[in-house]
């Protein structure tokens, strides 16, 4: 028997209603340390509402969210970020006219020491650039010549790389990635999938939202299948075929009775 493994994030019976529409109907969710959990579901299944409620973008009407066993109430994505949860948005949330280094530290800048930093709020550009260069190098994104390069001069894949590097650099709990390959070509997608594995290899848990089944099956350890506003099934990516997963997702196939969990997993 392996050591007990408790979820880094556990959500119990989340509910969210918009008027008479129930977007989340007692949805459960578990993410374990170091894993890549894919979240799939048909359009309108409510997966987006659920994931948003995990990172503060949506405030659930009811239910409980436990971060490392502690109840948390996020009201904005900034609350979640302060607790070590980083999000890579589908539109990346980068500022095109700012440099790579500026973007990495946007909203959490480093200050110079002493009077310059305290009184004059002077940025420590040198330290920020060095940090940015280190982080991009760690993830193999660097043959960068110029960390001052403006983000708008980067290709789609490079921008995705910067967004992922930013999330990986600052996350302490886990990273949520929303459709990271949706806007990319086949070749760039491949590079980003490798990047996701790299981030995982550094011990970080990842929630991957994707419509792309081959990509999901390539990188995910477990797959959370969302249907009709709740968790319909959780399966292990290497124990199910792609077509069965899609069949479960659309309701054509009965889901397995058991929720797949890593060995030794216990709930809070």
């Amino acid at each position, binding site marked *: 028997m392996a050591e007990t493994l408790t979820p880094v994030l556990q959500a119990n019976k989340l509910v969210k209603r918009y008027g008479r529409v129930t977007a989340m109907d007692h949805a459960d969710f578990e993410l374990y340390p170091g894993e890549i959990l894919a979240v799939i579901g048909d359009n309108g299944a409510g997966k987006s509402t659920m994931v948003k409620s995990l990172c503060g973008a949506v405030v659930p009407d009811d239910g409980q969210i436990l971060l490392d066993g502690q109840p948390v109430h996020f009201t904005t994505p900034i609350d979640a970020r302060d607790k070590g949860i980083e999000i890579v948005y589908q539109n990346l949330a980068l500022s095109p006219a700012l440099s790579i280094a500026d973007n990495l530290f*946007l909203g959490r800048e480093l200050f110079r020491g002493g009077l310059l930093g305290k009184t*004059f709020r002077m*940025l420590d550009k040198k330290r920020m650039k060095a940090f940015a260069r280190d982080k991009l190098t760690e993830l193999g994104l660097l043959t960068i*010549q110029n960390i001052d390069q403006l983000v708008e001069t980067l290709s789609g894949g490079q921008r995705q790389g910067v967004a992922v590097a930013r999330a990986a650099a600052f996350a302490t709990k886990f990273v949520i990635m929303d459709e990271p390959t949706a806007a990319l070509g086949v*070749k760039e997608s*491949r590079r980003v999938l490798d990047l996701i594995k790299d981030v*995982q290899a550094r011990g970080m848990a990842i929630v991957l939202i994707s419509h792309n089944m081959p990509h999901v099956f390539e990188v995910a350890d477990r797959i959370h299948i969302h249907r009709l506003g709740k968790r319909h099934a959780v399966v292990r990516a290497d124990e199910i075929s792609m077509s069965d997963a899609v069949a479960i997702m659309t309701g054509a196939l009965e889901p397995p009775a058991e929720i797949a969990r*890593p060995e030794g997993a216990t709930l809070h």
Partner: protein
Amino acid sequence: MTDQSGPNGEGRPKREMQDFEKVLDQSATDVASFHNRDRTLVASVQHILHANPTLVPVIVLIVSVLVFGAIANNFFTPFNISLIIQQVTIIGILGVAQTLIILTAGIDLSVAAIMVLSSVVMGKLAVNFGIPAPIAIIIGFAVGALCGAINGLLVTRLRLPPFIVTLGTWSIFFALNLWYSESQSIRSQDIDATAPMLKWFGERIDILGFQFTTGSFLMLFLFALFWYLLNWTPWGRHVYAVGDDAEAAGLSGIRVNRVLTSVYVIGGFLCAIAAWAAIGRVGSVSPQSFQEGNLDSITAVVIGGCSLFGGRGSIIGTLIGALIVGVFRSGLNLSGVDVLWQDFAVGLLIIIAVAIDQWLRKVSA
């Protein structure tokens, strides 16, 4: 069940490459690398200018100074150079305010109206009501900041376009200014007699035959201060980020409305500083003065290379832009060209500046 979800995904069988991916096996894997490709000359120029948006105005300024120096006899005299700088002072300070607002993808048509209202308040309180000059000036500053705050709140809370908001407040502030001043100017002698401090920024300082005013140094100080704030503080980076892509800035944890409001309040405050300097420059307070100041400040910002779409440009560009306008007006004047051609030239400069901006925005990766 076996453990197949360890931290590194260890122990899971390596997945076979999908059919459709087989062609990729031998393909280049350096898509996420950063390198400079060979570029044509035009593309290289485009890139250099894109990375240094102030370069175009600097070149234009140098060329225009050289050209006018060659064709107009009295151009390079200390008197003329001093005069250009004095003439640029007020528009320069308004240009600082305008730059902040244009960087956030806004525009402020009311800067000169705020300035004149503030100067009327300062003059009237100090001269007509006998309030000590420092207190009158501080109240004038407060009026400027309040006007800016009204603009800022209308933009952030009611989500109205800045163009419409400031078009409206331009009229409103101008009407308030006529009402409060009763359309009366305050004479220079009266200011000298009761509140000479109001004219402090008109004091002349001789340096090597050049006659600078304290107002010119005030302008240079404000450009230096806001260059620092924009480039070396988080607030400055956030101003750029908000102007660039407000949604992305918000997702990055920047309080967008707070940044926008701060920009309009500081802009209004700068207009009130310009009001104090304007009293020194003109000597009197006239509710009808500087009506062209709104558009002149925008001209300086645009010729200085700031993008009207926000997020791009530098404050030093605005200083250069204001100087270019000053140099053109002075040079054409000294060359004996009719005044109407000055306006013609400034108009041409604006269109060229915006065309260059559009071209640079299309820069390819």
